[in-house]
């Protein structure tokens, strides 16, 4: 087994493991957390499991590779994982999204995909990875050391058409063993995504449960995703700086929190455009009772909005019109237009100005947000949550409470003083302490209610 640190400059706690009880303690702690019932004796042979545990939980952001002249870098796509399966809410053929509905400018440049920019003279480029597709196989499996044991086969599925039966064992897909391989789970879904060709064909090595013979099966999988493709133009014919971030996403208007799996593409972009995108969304997440819209925004690498749609594009029944181009306005123009109209807000610019978030963070927590927080908060606001929601959530956070000594009274006093701009009276403190109790200590709810009363 290749050791993780061999390939990652040795930066992990396994190095610490070699230092005796310190590392061992963490190993045991973490392992015990995740595997209650496993005795410490499991580790008597040495602490080699530690990095198998804690490291696995740590998030990994992709690290910028050598940036190419186009200013982008190959990225793992956002559409990496998940299962496909039948769902009663799968969108019908007559539904809002038509398969492969395209509204691109047919005269524009081709897709730049596979992590390779396609710079064009006087044009721009987007940088996307090879778009993965989700495929439907139609099996329920239990992973084992031998392979993936088929427990159930969905009627009229690719698996059934290929002749798979319960108790057959899928040994390999695309020549790569699935199930537990050297104590590592090689997931069938992952392997399908890696091995299937563009048309959804994959070769499986199967142990037939009845004949006990190995056989190769060429399986034609069903598509489990729908495509929405198009292009984006900059209305002011401006030019994007290198490393701009283009986000195009399908939004659920009825229930903004109900995100569509693979319904968003995030790519780096530069130049004058047009910029092409392809959303391979998972139709299982489309609810025919809900309304959807397409939104697009371009930010710089700190999250500051550069271009946005004046209004998101409603996705009508029957899909978007063909050969459409999404025209994005510069954020400066949008702000100006908003001010002239007396509104001052741009509904589609969900990226939010990072300066606003920083200001709120400084006011409430005395520090600017980390990039981590900035991204999460942008996502939160993109779901249609308000600045009041955002402030309430920060006020309700452990950090805010900790700054006040984890003391309910100090919390209420400070919350009132901060939000109202004047010191709290004793009556106010008592009243809101009661409210806090009624909300079972939910500080976010209290803050939200207080702000709503102030309006």
């Amino acid at each position, binding site marked *: 087994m290749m050791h993780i640190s061999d390939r990652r400059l040795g930066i992990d706690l396994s190095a610490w493991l070699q230092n005796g009880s310190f590392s061992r303690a963490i190993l045991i702690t973490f392992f015990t*957390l995740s595997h209650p019932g496993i005795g410490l004796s499991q580790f008597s042979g040495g602490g080699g499991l530690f990095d198998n545990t804690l490291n696995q939980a740590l998030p990994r952001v992709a690290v910028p590779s050598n940036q190419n002249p186009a200013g982008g870098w190959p990225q793992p796509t956002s559409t990496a994982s998940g299962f496909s399966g039948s769902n009663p809410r799968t969108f019908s053929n007559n539904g809002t999204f038509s398969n492969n509905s395209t509204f691109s400018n047919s005269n524009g440049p081709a897709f730049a995909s596979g992590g390779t920019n396609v710079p064009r003279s006087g044009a721009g480029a987007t940088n996307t990875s090879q778009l993965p597709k989700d495929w439907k196989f139609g099996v329920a499996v239990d992973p084992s050391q031998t392979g993936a044991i088929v427990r159930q086969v969905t009627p009229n599925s690719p698996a059934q058409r290929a002749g798979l039966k319960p108790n057959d064992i899928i040994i390999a897909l695309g020549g790569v063993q699935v199930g537990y391989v050297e104590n590592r*789970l090689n997931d069938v879904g992952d392997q399908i995504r890696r091995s299937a060709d563009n048309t959804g064909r994959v070769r499986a090595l199967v142990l037939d449960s009845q004949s006990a013979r190995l056989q190769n099966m060429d399986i034609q999988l069903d598509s489990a995703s729908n495509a929405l493709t198009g292009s984006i133009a900059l209305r002011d014919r401006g030019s994007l700086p290198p490393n701009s971030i283009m986000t195009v996403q399908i939004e659920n208007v009825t229930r903004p929190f109900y995100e569509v799996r693979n319904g968003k593409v995030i790519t780096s972009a530069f130049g004058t455009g047009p910029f092409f995108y392809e959303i391979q969304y998972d139709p299982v997440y489309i609810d025919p009772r809900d309304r959807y819209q397409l939104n697009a925004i371009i930010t710089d690498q700190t999250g500051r909005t550069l271009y946005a749609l004046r209004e998101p594009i409603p996705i009508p029944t029957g899909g978007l019109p063909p050969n459409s181009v999404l025209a994005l306005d510069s954020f400066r123009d949008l702000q100006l237009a908003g001010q002239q109209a007396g509104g001052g807000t741009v509904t589609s610019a969900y990226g939010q100005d990072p300066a606003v978030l920083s200001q709120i963070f400084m006011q409430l927590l005395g520090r600017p947000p980390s990039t981590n927080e900035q991204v999460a908060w942008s996502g939160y606001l993109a779901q249609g949550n308000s600045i009041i929601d955002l402030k309430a959530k920060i006020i309700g956070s452990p950090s805010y409470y900790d700054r006040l000594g*984890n003391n309910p009274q100090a919390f209420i006093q400070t919350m009132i003083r901060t939000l109202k701009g004047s010191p709290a009276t004793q009556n106010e403190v008592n009243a809101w302490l009661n409210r806090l109790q009624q909300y079972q200590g939910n500080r976010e709810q209290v803050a939200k209610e207080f702000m709503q009363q102030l309006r």
Partner: protein
Amino acid sequence: MRRSLTRHIQTYMLLLMAITSGLSQSGEQLLAQDSTPPVASEKTEASTVSFQSQGNHLQLMQLLQSIDPYLPSGDIEGKAVLSGSTTMVLLGQTWAQRFKLFHPKVEFARGIDGSDAALESLAKDPNVIAGISRNVTEDEIAALKAANCKDPVVIVVALDAMAVYVNAENPLRSLTPEQLQGVFGADAKGQPKIATWGQLGVQGDLANAKIRIHHRSEISGTRNFIQQSLLGGQPLSEPAETHKSNHDICQSIAKDPAGISLCGFGDRVDNTRTVALEIRGQVVDATDTNFLAGQYPMVRPLSLVFDRAQLSQDGGLRASIIKYILSRDGQREAILTGFFPLNPDFIRQELVQLTGTQTH
């Protein structure tokens, strides 16, 4: 049971492999910057590891994108009881509010506060979900099994990155595991194994000064983390000062040139700084970026404990709650509450552990 344990081990071992294969690319792209000798570290050959800051925004967006959104599985109703540590109760409230957007008929009740009480509560009532921000011991698991909780499972749901804080004037650059253990652990006589800054390689006025440890006043999750995870259950050395909050700790360290403590990443105040960890000669700064890249290892896992045997008894309520927490929205909420999300691959493996058979 044996099969279950074997599966657990297999699952966890395979996880490393999954990460390993997925991260080789990341590792190769690390910038091993020119060595800046730690001001006061004994090992001056250590090099600093950090990532290019450029592009973090995009990568973080994509990290969240690679976690599947929550997919409700039909109408769910019922009442869930969340008990646990203060930290976890707050996270639980946040998750509960969001979960109710998908499932308005579900009700949540706040159970007993505190990790100990939550586990006791789970032992009596296997319908409880206990949120724990400290280690769960084998004895506690055995006690759960001996009571009414027949198949207790601990699932990590978020991460709390921890950092060593010192006064901004303190020249200490980095700490090795042994040094950290020596500072915070006590010997048989209750004395710290490393008592002065000079023993950590610090020179100048501070060299002969006694290391002054700042802790939380009560048995907090942080304190428990230090004792159980860093010291392997060994006693803590006596603190110079105790405080009611992490913020108080950092404010005190800002005024104490000889102070040191362990707090969360977000607790830093002016006139304090974090100390990097030195691992195999590599100095890893306590930054969000390093943590999110999987390079910074000191983390306190936040977990939920529940009875898996009961999952089939409540119409899918608790399984759905856990799936939600491990979804994109649930992980984003963890960030908004001040913590870090889990690795998407890890999440998928935890879901396999939760659901067993996979559908493709």
